[in-house]
Protein backbone atom coordinates (compact mmCIF):
# COMPACT_ATOMS: atom_id res chain seq x y z
CA UNK A 1 0.00 0.00 0.00
CA UNK A 2 2.64 2.68 0.84
CA UNK A 3 4.19 2.40 -2.62
CA UNK A 4 0.74 3.17 -4.02
CA UNK A 5 1.46 6.74 -2.97
CA UNK A 6 3.67 7.02 -6.00
CA UNK A 7 0.88 5.81 -8.28
CA UNK A 8 -0.27 8.94 -10.01
CA UNK A 9 -3.05 6.96 -11.69
CA UNK A 10 -4.58 6.05 -8.37
CA UNK A 11 -8.34 5.53 -8.33
CA UNK A 12 -8.28 8.12 -5.55
CA UNK A 13 -7.85 10.83 -8.19
CA UNK A 14 -11.18 12.58 -8.40
CA UNK A 15 -13.19 11.58 -11.44
CA UNK A 16 -14.22 14.45 -13.63
CA UNK A 17 -17.88 15.15 -13.12
CA UNK A 18 -20.27 14.37 -15.95
CA UNK A 19 -22.36 17.26 -14.66
CA UNK A 20 -19.73 19.77 -15.67
CA UNK A 21 -20.05 18.70 -19.29
CA UNK A 22 -23.85 18.51 -19.14
CA UNK A 23 -24.00 22.01 -17.69
CA UNK A 24 -22.52 23.25 -20.99
CA UNK A 25 -25.84 22.41 -22.66
CA UNK A 26 -27.34 25.61 -21.28
CA UNK A 27 -24.80 27.53 -23.33
CA UNK A 28 -24.93 25.38 -26.51
CA UNK A 29 -28.66 24.83 -26.75
CA UNK A 30 -29.11 28.14 -28.54
CA UNK A 31 -27.03 26.65 -31.40
CA UNK A 32 -29.11 23.50 -31.37
CA UNK A 33 -26.25 21.50 -29.85
CA UNK A 34 -27.11 19.29 -26.88
CA UNK A 35 -25.28 16.41 -25.24
CA UNK A 36 -26.94 13.53 -23.44
CA UNK A 37 -25.53 12.00 -20.25
CA UNK A 38 -24.32 9.09 -22.35
CA UNK A 39 -22.54 11.54 -24.70
CA UNK A 40 -20.88 13.20 -21.71
CA UNK A 41 -19.62 9.86 -20.37
CA UNK A 42 -18.46 8.97 -23.87
CA UNK A 43 -16.52 12.23 -24.15
CA UNK A 44 -14.87 11.74 -20.76
CA UNK A 45 -13.80 8.26 -21.80
CA UNK A 46 -12.41 9.64 -25.08
CA UNK A 47 -10.46 12.22 -23.07
CA UNK A 48 -9.07 9.55 -20.71
CA UNK A 49 -8.00 7.37 -23.64
CA UNK A 50 -6.36 10.31 -25.40
CA UNK A 51 -4.52 11.28 -22.21
CA UNK A 52 -3.28 7.74 -21.73
CA UNK A 53 -2.18 7.20 -25.32
CA UNK A 54 -0.32 10.52 -25.27
CA UNK A 55 1.32 9.80 -21.90
CA UNK A 56 -0.40 12.63 -20.09
CA UNK A 57 -2.31 13.04 -16.87
CA UNK A 58 -4.97 15.63 -16.11
CA UNK A 59 -5.97 17.22 -12.86
CA UNK A 60 -9.12 19.23 -12.22
CA UNK A 61 -12.06 19.64 -14.54
CA UNK A 62 -10.23 19.10 -17.80
CA UNK A 63 -10.45 20.84 -21.12
CA UNK A 64 -13.62 19.32 -22.64
CA UNK A 65 -15.96 22.05 -21.27
CA UNK A 66 -13.52 24.63 -22.67
CA UNK A 67 -13.56 22.99 -26.10
CA UNK A 68 -17.37 22.91 -26.02
CA UNK A 69 -17.57 26.58 -25.06
CA UNK A 70 -15.13 27.63 -27.79
CA UNK A 71 -16.53 25.57 -30.64
CA UNK A 72 -20.29 25.69 -30.04
CA UNK A 73 -20.79 28.76 -32.22
CA UNK A 74 -18.92 27.32 -35.21
CA UNK A 75 -20.98 27.56 -38.40
CA UNK A 76 -19.70 24.13 -39.40
CA UNK A 77 -21.23 22.24 -36.48
CA UNK A 78 -24.64 20.63 -36.49
CA UNK A 79 -26.39 18.56 -33.87
CA UNK A 80 -25.73 15.35 -35.84
CA UNK A 81 -21.97 15.79 -35.97
CA UNK A 82 -21.55 17.54 -32.61
CA UNK A 83 -20.46 14.59 -30.45
CA UNK A 84 -18.25 13.07 -33.16
CA UNK A 85 -16.47 16.40 -33.78
CA UNK A 86 -15.98 16.91 -30.05
CA UNK A 87 -14.37 13.49 -29.83
CA UNK A 88 -11.96 14.34 -32.64
CA UNK A 89 -11.18 17.78 -31.24
CA UNK A 90 -10.44 16.26 -27.83
CA UNK A 91 -8.05 13.73 -29.34
CA UNK A 92 -6.33 16.41 -31.45
CA UNK A 93 -6.01 18.68 -28.45
CA UNK A 94 -4.06 16.21 -26.28
CA UNK A 95 -1.95 15.00 -29.20
CA UNK A 96 -0.87 18.53 -30.04
CA UNK A 97 -0.23 19.47 -26.42
CA UNK A 98 2.64 16.99 -26.67
CA UNK A 99 3.63 18.00 -30.19
CA UNK A 100 3.91 21.64 -29.14
CA UNK A 101 6.03 20.50 -26.18
CA UNK A 102 3.65 22.18 -23.72
CA UNK A 103 4.86 25.53 -25.00
CA UNK A 104 1.32 26.76 -25.56
CA UNK A 105 -1.43 27.12 -22.98
CA UNK A 106 -4.70 25.18 -23.14
CA UNK A 107 -6.65 28.34 -23.90
CA UNK A 108 -4.33 29.47 -26.69
CA UNK A 109 -4.29 26.03 -28.32
CA UNK A 110 -8.07 25.78 -28.25
CA UNK A 111 -8.39 29.31 -29.66
CA UNK A 112 -5.95 28.47 -32.47
CA UNK A 113 -7.86 25.27 -33.24
CA UNK A 114 -11.12 27.19 -33.46
CA UNK A 115 -9.63 29.89 -35.68
CA UNK A 116 -8.23 27.29 -38.12
CA UNK A 117 -11.37 25.12 -37.95
CA UNK A 118 -13.66 27.97 -38.88
CA UNK A 119 -11.12 29.50 -41.28
CA UNK A 120 -8.83 27.64 -43.65
CA UNK A 121 -9.99 24.20 -42.54
CA UNK A 122 -13.64 24.90 -43.28
CA UNK A 123 -14.84 22.67 -40.48
CA UNK A 124 -12.69 19.64 -41.39
CA UNK A 125 -10.96 17.93 -38.43
CA UNK A 126 -8.60 16.24 -40.93
CA UNK A 127 -7.42 19.59 -42.31
CA UNK A 128 -7.23 20.90 -38.78
CA UNK A 129 -4.81 18.10 -37.94
CA UNK A 130 -2.57 19.22 -40.84
CA UNK A 131 -2.73 22.83 -39.73
CA UNK A 132 -1.85 21.85 -36.18
CA UNK A 133 1.00 19.70 -37.40
CA UNK A 134 2.52 22.62 -39.28
CA UNK A 135 1.90 24.93 -36.31
CA UNK A 136 3.59 22.50 -33.89
CA UNK A 137 6.56 22.03 -36.20
CA UNK A 138 7.15 25.75 -36.41
CA UNK A 139 6.79 26.06 -32.67
CA UNK A 140 9.37 23.32 -32.10
CA UNK A 141 11.73 24.91 -34.65
CA UNK A 142 11.42 28.22 -32.86
CA UNK A 143 9.98 29.99 -35.91
CA UNK A 144 6.99 32.26 -35.51
CA UNK A 145 3.96 29.98 -35.26
CA UNK A 146 1.63 32.90 -36.00
CA UNK A 147 3.04 33.72 -39.43
CA UNK A 148 0.69 33.03 -42.36
CA UNK A 149 0.47 29.38 -43.19
CA UNK A 150 1.26 29.03 -46.85
CA UNK A 151 2.59 25.55 -46.34
CA UNK A 152 -0.63 24.16 -44.97
CA UNK A 153 -1.38 22.48 -48.21
CA UNK A 154 -4.83 24.05 -48.24
CA UNK A 155 -5.70 26.71 -50.80
CA UNK A 156 -7.94 29.63 -50.11
CA UNK A 157 -10.97 27.60 -50.96
CA UNK A 158 -9.90 24.83 -48.70
CA UNK A 159 -9.73 22.23 -51.48
Amino acid at each position, binding site marked *: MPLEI*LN*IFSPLIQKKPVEEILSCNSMTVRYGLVLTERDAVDLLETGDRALKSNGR*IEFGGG*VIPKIIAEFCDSPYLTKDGWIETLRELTELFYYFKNETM*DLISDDDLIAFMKEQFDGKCHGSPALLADALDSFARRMRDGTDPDRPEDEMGVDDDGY
Partner: protein
Amino acid sequence: MTDIEKRRIMDRTNLSGETYFLSLLQAGHHYGFLTDSDLEKIQRQCLELLAAKADEWSRGKSSSIRTERAESIMKSNLYTIGLYLKTLPDPEAAVQELKTATVKDMYQKGRKILGAKLHTAKHFYHLVLKNKIVTVNEAYNATLGKSGIGIFFNTYNPDFEAHEIPASIDYQLCRPVTDLAGVEFIQKYLENVYLENEFCRHFAAEDIHHLLSGYDENYQHLLINIFEQVLTGAIGCLLAGGNVRKLEINPEEVRALQEELSGDEDRAIACKIRKAAGDLSELENLTRPSLRDYIEKSLPKITANILHAVRTNTLDKTFVPPLHPERKPSIRFFSNAKMADEAYREMIAELLVCRFSTDKLALIREKVKAFDDLEDVLLDARLSVKEILLLFDSLGDMEIAALIKRHPFHSDVQAVEVSEAEKTLRFSLKTFLEKLPSERRERILSLADRLAEE
Protein backbone atom coordinates in the same frame (compact mmCIF):
# COMPACT_ATOMS: atom_id res chain seq x y z
CA MET B 1 6.12 -8.00 18.84
CA THR B 2 6.70 -5.63 21.74
CA ASP B 3 6.72 -1.86 21.38
CA ILE B 4 10.45 -1.82 22.11
CA GLU B 5 11.06 -4.26 19.26
CA LYS B 6 8.88 -2.19 16.95
CA ARG B 7 10.81 0.93 17.83
CA ARG B 8 14.08 -0.87 17.15
CA ILE B 9 12.84 -1.80 13.68
CA MET B 10 11.66 1.75 13.17
CA ASP B 11 15.22 2.80 13.95
CA ARG B 12 16.33 5.62 11.69
CA THR B 13 19.28 3.62 10.36
CA ASN B 14 16.91 0.94 9.03
CA LEU B 15 15.04 3.48 6.91
CA SER B 16 16.06 4.74 3.49
CA GLY B 17 17.76 8.12 3.54
CA GLU B 18 17.02 8.67 -0.12
CA THR B 19 13.28 7.93 0.02
CA TYR B 20 12.71 8.53 3.70
CA PHE B 21 9.01 9.37 3.49
CA LEU B 22 8.15 6.19 1.61
CA SER B 23 10.23 3.91 3.78
CA LEU B 24 8.71 5.49 6.88
CA LEU B 25 5.22 4.83 5.53
CA GLN B 26 6.19 1.28 4.69
CA ALA B 27 7.66 0.55 8.10
CA GLY B 28 4.90 2.46 9.92
CA HIS B 29 2.20 0.49 8.12
CA HIS B 30 4.01 -2.83 8.43
CA TYR B 31 4.39 -2.56 12.17
CA GLY B 32 0.87 -1.26 12.71
CA PHE B 33 1.64 2.36 13.60
CA LEU B 34 -0.24 3.51 10.48
CA THR B 35 -3.64 2.11 9.51
CA ASP B 36 -5.03 1.65 6.00
CA SER B 37 -7.19 4.68 6.53
CA ASP B 38 -4.14 6.75 7.56
CA LEU B 39 -2.45 5.72 4.33
CA GLU B 40 -5.50 6.51 2.23
CA LYS B 41 -5.71 9.97 3.75
CA ILE B 42 -2.00 10.56 3.10
CA GLN B 43 -2.26 9.31 -0.48
CA ARG B 44 -5.28 11.48 -1.24
CA GLN B 45 -3.47 14.52 0.11
CA CYS B 46 -0.33 13.63 -1.86
CA LEU B 47 -2.42 13.59 -5.05
CA GLU B 48 -3.97 16.94 -4.13
CA LEU B 49 -0.51 18.37 -3.61
CA LEU B 50 0.59 16.89 -6.94
CA ALA B 51 -2.35 18.54 -8.70
CA ALA B 52 -1.50 21.90 -7.13
CA LYS B 53 2.20 21.59 -8.03
CA ALA B 54 1.36 20.48 -11.58
CA ASP B 55 -0.77 23.59 -11.95
CA GLU B 56 2.08 25.66 -10.54
CA TRP B 57 4.50 23.99 -12.96
CA SER B 58 2.35 24.94 -15.97
CA ARG B 59 1.74 28.38 -14.43
CA GLY B 60 -1.97 27.65 -14.50
CA LYS B 61 -1.95 27.39 -18.28
CA SER B 62 -2.42 23.67 -18.70
CA SER B 63 -4.80 21.24 -17.06
CA SER B 64 -2.71 18.23 -18.14
CA ILE B 65 0.99 17.43 -18.01
CA ARG B 66 3.12 14.55 -19.25
CA THR B 67 3.06 11.46 -17.07
CA GLU B 68 6.83 11.39 -16.51
CA ARG B 69 6.72 15.04 -15.42
CA ALA B 70 3.92 14.23 -12.96
CA GLU B 71 5.90 11.29 -11.56
CA SER B 72 8.96 13.46 -11.17
CA ILE B 73 6.98 16.17 -9.38
CA MET B 74 5.50 13.52 -7.09
CA LYS B 75 8.98 12.22 -6.21
CA SER B 76 10.14 15.78 -5.63
CA ASN B 77 7.20 16.42 -3.27
CA LEU B 78 7.81 13.22 -1.29
CA TYR B 79 11.53 14.01 -1.08
CA THR B 80 10.78 17.47 0.32
CA ILE B 81 8.32 16.08 2.88
CA GLY B 82 11.03 13.54 3.83
CA LEU B 83 13.42 16.40 4.61
CA TYR B 84 10.96 17.71 7.19
CA LEU B 85 10.23 14.28 8.68
CA LYS B 86 13.96 13.67 9.14
CA THR B 87 14.17 16.70 11.42
CA LEU B 88 11.75 15.15 13.93
CA PRO B 89 13.39 13.48 16.94
CA ASP B 90 12.82 9.90 15.78
CA PRO B 91 10.81 7.81 13.29
CA GLU B 92 8.09 7.29 15.88
CA ALA B 93 7.56 11.05 16.15
CA ALA B 94 7.63 11.25 12.36
CA VAL B 95 4.91 8.60 12.08
CA GLN B 96 2.86 10.48 14.64
CA GLU B 97 3.24 13.60 12.53
CA LEU B 98 2.06 11.69 9.46
CA LYS B 99 -1.10 10.75 11.32
CA THR B 100 -1.95 14.25 12.44
CA ALA B 101 -0.42 16.83 10.08
CA THR B 102 -1.54 17.53 6.53
CA VAL B 103 0.69 16.66 3.58
CA LYS B 104 0.55 20.29 2.43
CA ASP B 105 1.82 21.54 5.81
CA MET B 106 4.60 18.97 5.90
CA TYR B 107 5.59 19.91 2.35
CA GLN B 108 5.78 23.59 3.20
CA LYS B 109 7.96 22.88 6.24
CA GLY B 110 10.16 20.61 4.12
CA ARG B 111 10.47 23.29 1.45
CA LYS B 112 11.79 25.76 4.06
CA ILE B 113 14.34 23.21 5.23
CA LEU B 114 15.32 22.55 1.62
CA GLY B 115 15.96 26.26 1.09
CA ALA B 116 18.19 26.33 4.16
CA LYS B 117 20.07 23.23 3.04
CA LEU B 118 20.62 24.73 -0.39
CA HIS B 119 22.07 27.79 1.30
CA THR B 120 24.38 25.62 3.43
CA ALA B 121 25.45 23.58 0.40
CA LYS B 122 26.36 26.81 -1.43
CA HIS B 123 28.39 27.91 1.57
CA PHE B 124 30.27 24.60 1.55
CA TYR B 125 30.89 24.97 -2.17
CA HIS B 126 32.56 28.34 -1.51
CA LEU B 127 34.62 26.77 1.30
CA VAL B 128 35.67 23.91 -0.98
CA LEU B 129 36.71 26.33 -3.70
CA LYS B 130 38.82 28.09 -1.09
CA ASN B 131 40.51 25.01 0.36
CA LYS B 132 40.81 23.18 -2.97
CA ILE B 133 44.24 21.63 -3.33
CA VAL B 134 46.58 22.26 -6.24
CA THR B 135 46.68 19.10 -8.32
CA VAL B 136 46.79 18.01 -11.94
CA ASN B 137 44.15 15.33 -11.35
CA GLU B 138 41.52 16.01 -14.00
CA ALA B 139 38.54 14.36 -12.28
CA TYR B 140 39.18 16.38 -9.11
CA ASN B 141 39.49 19.70 -10.94
CA ALA B 142 36.56 19.07 -13.28
CA THR B 143 34.23 17.92 -10.51
CA LEU B 144 34.91 20.90 -8.30
CA GLY B 145 34.79 23.33 -11.22
CA LYS B 146 31.95 25.39 -12.63
CA SER B 147 31.01 22.69 -15.11
CA GLY B 148 31.05 20.00 -12.41
CA ILE B 149 29.32 20.67 -9.12
CA GLY B 150 28.97 24.30 -10.16
CA ILE B 151 26.20 23.23 -12.57
CA PHE B 152 24.11 22.10 -9.62
CA PHE B 153 23.73 25.57 -8.20
CA ASN B 154 22.60 26.95 -11.55
CA THR B 155 20.19 24.21 -12.54
CA TYR B 156 18.82 22.63 -9.34
CA ASN B 157 15.05 23.03 -9.25
CA PRO B 158 13.91 22.80 -5.61
CA ASP B 159 10.22 23.19 -6.43
CA PHE B 160 9.76 20.46 -9.00
CA GLU B 161 12.91 18.32 -9.08
CA ALA B 162 14.17 18.50 -5.52
CA HIS B 163 15.26 14.85 -5.56
CA GLU B 164 17.53 15.23 -8.59
CA ILE B 165 21.31 15.85 -8.63
CA PRO B 166 21.94 17.85 -11.80
CA ALA B 167 25.73 17.93 -11.64
CA SER B 168 28.69 16.21 -13.23
CA ILE B 169 30.50 14.40 -10.41
CA ASP B 170 33.28 12.02 -11.44
CA TYR B 171 35.66 12.45 -8.53
CA GLN B 172 35.30 9.58 -6.09
CA LEU B 173 35.45 10.25 -2.38
CA CYS B 174 37.22 8.03 0.12
CA ARG B 175 33.87 7.80 1.88
CA PRO B 176 31.32 7.91 -0.94
CA VAL B 177 27.97 9.52 -0.22
CA THR B 178 25.30 6.88 -0.40
CA ASP B 179 21.59 6.77 0.39
CA LEU B 180 21.04 10.48 -0.13
CA ALA B 181 19.59 12.43 -3.04
CA GLY B 182 19.06 16.02 -4.17
CA VAL B 183 20.53 18.81 -2.12
CA GLU B 184 21.27 16.45 0.78
CA PHE B 185 23.64 14.48 -1.47
CA ILE B 186 25.41 17.61 -2.69
CA GLN B 187 25.74 19.02 0.81
CA LYS B 188 27.23 15.79 2.17
CA TYR B 189 29.52 15.39 -0.85
CA LEU B 190 30.84 18.92 -0.40
CA GLU B 191 31.27 18.45 3.36
CA ASN B 192 33.36 15.35 2.69
CA VAL B 193 35.46 17.02 -0.02
CA TYR B 194 36.02 19.94 2.33
CA LEU B 195 37.36 17.61 5.05
CA GLU B 196 39.50 15.67 2.57
CA ASN B 197 40.98 18.95 1.30
CA GLU B 198 41.53 20.13 4.85
CA PHE B 199 43.60 17.03 5.55
CA CYS B 200 45.56 17.17 2.30
CA ARG B 201 46.44 20.80 2.90
CA HIS B 202 48.62 19.67 5.81
CA PHE B 203 51.04 18.48 3.12
CA ALA B 204 52.79 20.43 0.38
CA ALA B 205 51.09 20.17 -3.01
CA GLU B 206 54.37 19.10 -4.62
CA ASP B 207 54.87 16.31 -2.06
CA ILE B 208 51.36 15.05 -2.85
CA HIS B 209 52.22 15.28 -6.55
CA HIS B 210 55.35 13.18 -6.01
CA LEU B 211 53.45 10.63 -3.93
CA LEU B 212 50.71 10.29 -6.57
CA SER B 213 53.30 10.16 -9.37
CA GLY B 214 54.86 7.22 -7.52
CA TYR B 215 51.47 5.57 -7.48
CA ASP B 216 51.03 6.18 -11.20
CA GLU B 217 52.94 8.64 -13.33
CA ASN B 218 49.75 9.37 -15.28
CA TYR B 219 47.59 9.85 -12.21
CA GLN B 220 46.16 13.05 -13.65
CA HIS B 221 43.91 10.94 -15.86
CA LEU B 222 42.91 8.44 -13.16
CA LEU B 223 39.78 8.27 -11.03
CA ILE B 224 41.67 8.06 -7.74
CA ASN B 225 40.90 9.61 -4.39
CA ILE B 226 43.73 11.92 -3.41
CA PHE B 227 42.90 11.96 0.31
CA GLU B 228 42.98 8.17 0.50
CA GLN B 229 46.39 8.02 -1.19
CA VAL B 230 47.79 10.74 1.07
CA LEU B 231 46.39 9.21 4.26
CA THR B 232 47.64 5.76 3.25
CA GLY B 233 51.04 7.22 2.36
CA ALA B 234 51.27 9.08 5.66
CA ILE B 235 50.31 5.98 7.65
CA GLY B 236 52.90 4.01 5.67
CA CYS B 237 55.57 6.56 6.55
CA LEU B 238 54.68 6.34 10.25
CA LEU B 239 54.63 2.54 10.24
CA ALA B 240 57.91 2.21 8.33
CA GLY B 241 59.79 5.17 9.77
CA GLY B 242 59.67 7.28 6.60
CA ASN B 243 59.41 11.05 6.36
CA VAL B 244 55.73 11.80 7.09
CA ARG B 245 56.07 15.52 6.47
CA LYS B 246 57.33 14.87 2.93
CA LEU B 247 55.28 11.68 2.46
CA GLU B 248 58.54 9.95 1.64
CA ILE B 249 59.18 6.28 2.11
CA ASN B 250 61.93 4.23 0.46
CA PRO B 251 61.81 0.68 -0.92
CA GLU B 252 64.01 -0.68 1.90
CA GLU B 253 61.64 0.72 4.51
CA VAL B 254 58.70 -0.87 2.72
CA ARG B 255 60.52 -4.21 2.49
CA ALA B 256 61.29 -4.15 6.21
CA LEU B 257 57.69 -3.24 6.99
CA GLN B 258 56.41 -6.06 4.79
CA GLU B 259 58.60 -8.47 6.75
CA GLU B 260 57.49 -7.08 10.10
CA LEU B 261 53.76 -7.09 9.33
CA SER B 262 53.82 -10.53 7.68
CA GLY B 263 54.34 -12.04 11.10
CA ASP B 264 51.43 -10.16 12.67
CA GLU B 265 47.81 -11.18 13.10
CA ASP B 266 45.24 -9.07 11.23
CA ARG B 267 44.07 -7.56 14.49
CA ALA B 268 47.57 -6.55 15.47
CA ILE B 269 48.12 -4.89 12.10
CA ALA B 270 44.80 -3.04 12.41
CA CYS B 271 45.92 -1.82 15.87
CA LYS B 272 49.21 -0.55 14.46
CA ILE B 273 47.36 1.29 11.69
CA ARG B 274 44.93 2.81 14.17
CA LYS B 275 47.82 3.94 16.37
CA ALA B 276 49.65 5.40 13.37
CA ALA B 277 46.48 7.33 12.40
CA GLY B 278 46.25 8.63 15.99
CA ASP B 279 49.90 9.66 15.93
CA LEU B 280 49.31 11.36 12.62
CA SER B 281 46.47 13.42 14.08
CA GLU B 282 48.73 14.49 16.94
CA LEU B 283 51.69 15.15 14.69
CA GLU B 284 49.74 17.24 12.23
CA ASN B 285 47.74 18.85 15.01
CA LEU B 286 44.45 17.75 13.50
CA THR B 287 42.16 19.25 16.09
CA ARG B 288 38.92 19.60 14.12
CA PRO B 289 36.66 16.85 15.50
CA SER B 290 34.85 16.40 12.17
CA LEU B 291 38.15 15.76 10.39
CA ARG B 292 39.35 13.33 13.07
CA ASP B 293 36.01 11.55 12.76
CA TYR B 294 36.32 11.42 8.95
CA ILE B 295 39.80 9.89 9.20
CA GLU B 296 38.55 7.42 11.80
CA LYS B 297 35.73 6.33 9.51
CA SER B 298 38.08 6.04 6.53
CA LEU B 299 40.40 3.68 8.37
CA PRO B 300 38.51 0.39 7.78
CA LYS B 301 38.89 0.81 4.00
CA ILE B 302 42.57 1.72 4.26
CA THR B 303 43.20 -1.06 6.77
CA ALA B 304 41.59 -3.60 4.43
CA ASN B 305 43.85 -2.45 1.57
CA ILE B 306 46.97 -2.70 3.72
CA LEU B 307 46.01 -6.12 5.09
CA HIS B 308 45.42 -7.42 1.58
CA ALA B 309 48.79 -6.05 0.47
CA VAL B 310 50.58 -7.63 3.43
CA ARG B 311 48.99 -11.02 2.82
CA THR B 312 49.72 -10.94 -0.92
CA ASN B 313 53.25 -9.64 -0.39
CA THR B 314 52.50 -6.51 -2.43
CA LEU B 315 52.97 -3.82 0.19
CA ASP B 316 55.26 -2.01 -2.25
CA LYS B 317 52.18 -1.33 -4.40
CA THR B 318 50.32 0.25 -1.47
CA PHE B 319 53.18 2.23 0.08
CA VAL B 320 54.97 3.70 -2.91
CA PRO B 321 58.14 5.72 -2.87
CA PRO B 322 57.59 9.21 -4.31
CA LEU B 323 58.47 9.77 -7.92
CA HIS B 324 59.97 13.06 -9.03
CA PRO B 325 59.24 13.21 -12.73
CA GLU B 326 61.20 16.44 -12.99
CA ARG B 327 64.31 14.65 -11.68
CA LYS B 328 64.24 11.99 -14.38
CA PRO B 329 67.80 11.76 -15.81
CA SER B 330 67.86 13.74 -19.00
CA ILE B 331 70.26 13.81 -21.90
CA ARG B 332 71.36 16.95 -23.67
CA PHE B 333 72.04 16.73 -27.35
CA PHE B 334 74.46 19.16 -28.93
CA SER B 335 74.90 19.66 -32.63
CA ASN B 336 78.19 20.66 -34.26
CA ALA B 337 78.41 24.18 -35.60
CA LYS B 338 76.27 24.76 -38.66
CA MET B 339 77.89 25.41 -42.03
CA ALA B 340 77.93 28.91 -43.47
CA ASP B 341 74.69 30.11 -45.05
CA GLU B 342 76.29 30.56 -48.47
CA ALA B 343 77.74 27.06 -48.48
CA TYR B 344 74.39 25.66 -47.32
CA ARG B 345 72.49 27.43 -50.12
CA GLU B 346 74.93 26.10 -52.71
CA MET B 347 74.56 22.57 -51.39
CA ILE B 348 70.74 22.75 -51.48
CA ALA B 349 70.82 24.13 -55.03
CA GLU B 350 73.08 21.23 -56.03
CA LEU B 351 70.81 18.70 -54.33
CA LEU B 352 67.73 20.05 -56.08
CA VAL B 353 69.23 19.40 -59.50
CA CYS B 354 70.65 15.99 -58.64
CA ARG B 355 68.83 13.28 -60.64
CA PHE B 356 69.90 10.19 -58.73
CA SER B 357 69.27 9.36 -55.11
CA THR B 358 72.73 7.86 -54.68
CA ASP B 359 74.31 11.15 -55.78
CA LYS B 360 72.13 13.12 -53.35
CA LEU B 361 73.04 10.87 -50.44
CA ALA B 362 76.72 10.95 -51.31
CA LEU B 363 76.63 14.76 -51.45
CA ILE B 364 74.86 15.00 -48.08
CA ARG B 365 77.29 12.58 -46.43
CA GLU B 366 80.20 14.54 -47.80
CA LYS B 367 79.06 18.07 -46.93
CA VAL B 368 76.86 17.77 -43.83
CA LYS B 369 78.80 17.57 -40.59
CA ALA B 370 76.31 19.10 -38.14
CA PHE B 371 73.01 17.64 -36.96
CA ASP B 372 71.28 21.00 -37.32
CA ASP B 373 72.33 21.14 -41.00
CA LEU B 374 71.08 17.60 -41.53
CA GLU B 375 67.73 18.57 -40.06
CA ASP B 376 67.53 21.57 -42.41
CA VAL B 377 68.43 19.41 -45.41
CA LEU B 378 65.68 16.96 -44.55
CA LEU B 379 63.20 19.82 -44.76
CA ASP B 380 64.69 21.86 -47.62
CA ALA B 381 66.09 19.35 -50.16
CA ARG B 382 62.72 17.93 -51.26
CA LEU B 383 63.92 14.38 -50.64
CA SER B 384 61.51 11.52 -51.20
CA VAL B 385 60.49 9.25 -48.35
CA LYS B 386 62.66 6.53 -49.86
CA GLU B 387 65.70 8.86 -49.90
CA ILE B 388 65.06 9.98 -46.34
CA LEU B 389 64.82 6.37 -45.19
CA LEU B 390 68.15 5.59 -46.89
CA LEU B 391 69.66 8.58 -45.11
CA PHE B 392 68.28 7.41 -41.75
CA ASP B 393 70.06 4.07 -42.27
CA SER B 394 73.37 5.85 -41.87
CA LEU B 395 72.35 7.66 -38.65
CA GLY B 396 72.96 6.52 -35.10
CA ASP B 397 70.31 6.00 -32.39
CA MET B 398 70.94 9.40 -30.83
CA GLU B 399 70.44 11.32 -34.08
CA ILE B 400 67.20 9.45 -34.79
CA ALA B 401 66.05 10.07 -31.19
CA ALA B 402 66.82 13.79 -31.54
CA LEU B 403 64.84 13.93 -34.80
CA ILE B 404 61.87 12.20 -33.11
CA LYS B 405 62.06 14.65 -30.24
CA ARG B 406 62.02 17.62 -32.61
CA HIS B 407 59.53 16.16 -35.10
CA PRO B 408 56.99 14.15 -33.10
CA PHE B 409 54.69 12.04 -35.19
CA HIS B 410 52.20 10.96 -32.51
CA SER B 411 49.30 13.20 -33.31
CA ASP B 412 47.40 13.43 -36.57
CA VAL B 413 46.02 16.76 -35.42
CA GLN B 414 49.53 18.17 -35.23
CA ALA B 415 50.30 16.84 -38.69
CA VAL B 416 47.49 18.89 -40.20
CA GLU B 417 49.01 22.12 -38.98
CA VAL B 418 52.55 21.59 -40.35
CA SER B 419 54.23 22.06 -43.72
CA GLU B 420 54.35 19.34 -46.38
CA ALA B 421 58.11 18.89 -45.84
CA GLU B 422 57.53 18.48 -42.11
CA LYS B 423 54.77 15.95 -42.76
CA THR B 424 57.09 13.96 -45.04
CA LEU B 425 59.83 13.98 -42.44
CA ARG B 426 57.46 12.84 -39.66
CA PHE B 427 55.99 10.13 -41.85
CA SER B 428 59.49 8.93 -42.76
CA LEU B 429 60.50 8.81 -39.10
CA LYS B 430 57.39 6.83 -38.25
CA THR B 431 57.98 4.41 -41.14
CA PHE B 432 61.64 4.02 -40.27
CA LEU B 433 60.86 3.29 -36.64
CA GLU B 434 58.18 0.75 -37.49
CA LYS B 435 60.64 -1.23 -39.60
CA LEU B 436 63.28 -1.43 -36.86
CA PRO B 437 63.72 -4.48 -34.62
CA SER B 438 61.72 -3.89 -31.44
CA GLU B 439 64.84 -3.75 -29.25
CA ARG B 440 66.42 -0.88 -31.19
CA ARG B 441 63.07 0.87 -31.51
CA GLU B 442 62.59 0.80 -27.71
CA ARG B 443 66.11 2.06 -27.18
CA ILE B 444 65.58 5.01 -29.53
CA LEU B 445 62.20 5.89 -28.01
CA SER B 446 63.67 5.75 -24.52
CA LEU B 447 66.48 8.07 -25.61
CA ALA B 448 63.97 10.46 -27.18
CA ASP B 449 61.95 10.43 -23.96
CA ARG B 450 64.99 11.35 -21.91
CA LEU B 451 66.26 14.06 -24.18
CA ALA B 452 66.02 17.43 -22.48
CA GLU B 453 63.55 19.96 -23.88
CA GLU B 454 65.35 22.67 -25.82
